[in-house]
């Protein structure tokens, strides 16, 4: 049994995920700087820039959680280690996404309501006057490329590690083309003289941020209040957990099976059932392929109360 919270099998994929998240932060910083240089007064650009900046939250939270999971040992003060730090990081990222998404949506709607006309003037580059909008478009196109590749690489690792934080980040990165397309349309619309295009594109991007935040918030709070394990990408119940429940229920038909999730691990309580006579590791009850049996960290049995104990 590992003295840290991370199962031994996950050390190698975790190291790969950490390397990837450092690259993710590096490329996100290049996008933030590029976008920041050509921000102007455009609502679309400001919203996209804030969204890109927010994109740093999940990888940073992931790295903090991974460090604690890998290096912090179980102790008297933290006997269960830090396996829930990832869940806490997921919650913090979800709160940040939701709050900023709501604020951005409010700003965009206010700009639409007050019919704000965004000014995007000219800039001199190598002695030539150029409309700043062209540079904004170039920055928007650049901002689409790194997340697409990083998201693709993150997704299989997130599944392997059953890491919701990494998975949310992967989906946000993969879906970035949508906000990028909205951003491009907003700037082109602004260039065509449609003053509302800028604020409308900003509203679309902020709805996307808000949507990501609410989904992540629902999933992360479910874990914090000991809800049944949720799927990686949605608030539905996890397939893995459903199979564990069915497996335990099949062997202990009269028992009540309760499952919860601590970080990436599943913990099961079998109520009103005696434990089997032979000694079994919790992984014994894992119903699926063996390489993911680390997911089931605990199976506890609570025997029924005897009649004389009831009084």
């Amino acid at each position, binding site marked *: 049994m590992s003295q840290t919270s991370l199962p031994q099998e996950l050390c190698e994929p975790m190291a790969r995920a950490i390397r990837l998240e450092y690259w993710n932060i590096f490329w996100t910083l290049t996008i933030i700087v590029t976008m920041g240089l050509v921000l102007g007064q455009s609502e679309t650009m400001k919203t996209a820039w804030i969204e890109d900046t927010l994109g740093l939250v999940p990888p940073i939270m992931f790295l903090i959680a991974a460090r604690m999971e890998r290096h912090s040992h179980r102790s008297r003060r933290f006997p269960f280690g830090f396996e829930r730090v990832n869940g806490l990081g997921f919650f913090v990222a979800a709160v940040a996404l939701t709050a900023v998404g709501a604020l951005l949506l409010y700003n965009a709607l206010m700009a639409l309501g007050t019919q*704000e*006309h965004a000014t995007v*003037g*000219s800039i001199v580059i190598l002695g030539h006057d150029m409309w700043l*909008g*062209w540079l904004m478009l170039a920055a928007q196109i650049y901002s689409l490329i790194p997340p697409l590749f990083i998201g693709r690489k993150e997704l299989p690792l997130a599944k392997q590690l059953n890491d919701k934080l990494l998975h949310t980040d992967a989906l946000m990165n993969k879906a970035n083309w949508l906000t990028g397309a909205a951003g491009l349309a907003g700037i*082109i619309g602004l260039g065509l003289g449609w003053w509302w295009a800028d604020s409308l594109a900003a509203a679309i991007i902020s709805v996307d941020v808000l949507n990501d935040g609410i989904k992540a918030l629902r999933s992360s709070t479910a874990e914090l209040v000991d809800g049944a394990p949720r799927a990686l990408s949605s608030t539905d119940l996890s397939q893995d957990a459903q199979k564990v429940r069915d497996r335990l229920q099949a062997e202990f038909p009269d028992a009540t099976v309760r499952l919860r999730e601590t970080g990436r691990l599943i913990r099961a309580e079998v109520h009103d059932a005696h434990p089997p006579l032979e000694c079994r590791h919790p992984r014994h009850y894992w119903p699926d392929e063996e390489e993911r049996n680390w997911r089931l960290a605990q199976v506890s049995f609570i025997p029924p109360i005897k009649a004389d104990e009831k009084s």
Partner: protein
Amino acid sequence: MMRGAAFAILLLGACDALPRDPAGTSTRIERNRIFIVALADPAIRSAPQVSRLVEEIERRTKARARWRSGSGESLFQQLDEVKIDLVIGRFTADSPWATDVAFAPALSTSGTKDAPIELKAAMRNGENRWIMTVERASRAISQEARDQ
């Protein structure tokens, strides 16, 4: 090869086509051959940069300037109502109007280092093609504007 050249030509054409003005300021000036200018402070009429800027805009738009009198706040109101196309005046560098109108680069700066006062043109927010025309004209006639 041919496709690439055609795309490049298309792109260059598009470069000139954008931006356009939501309230159609540039199109109106091109059609009527007149743009309306007001001075926020009548005393600056004698400043050489003011007449040079207006002449440069006239040259670029092939339109004539029509002068209108007025003062400070009411001029910005008229700018917003598309009754005036350009307001030229001396404004503080951190003017509170900066979010309500679009300022072109400063033609010249006076006042103290802590509270510089800039001679510059103000346009209606969002009229991006017209704003670009005035910005280009400001840079063409002033080294200070070019350096910003």
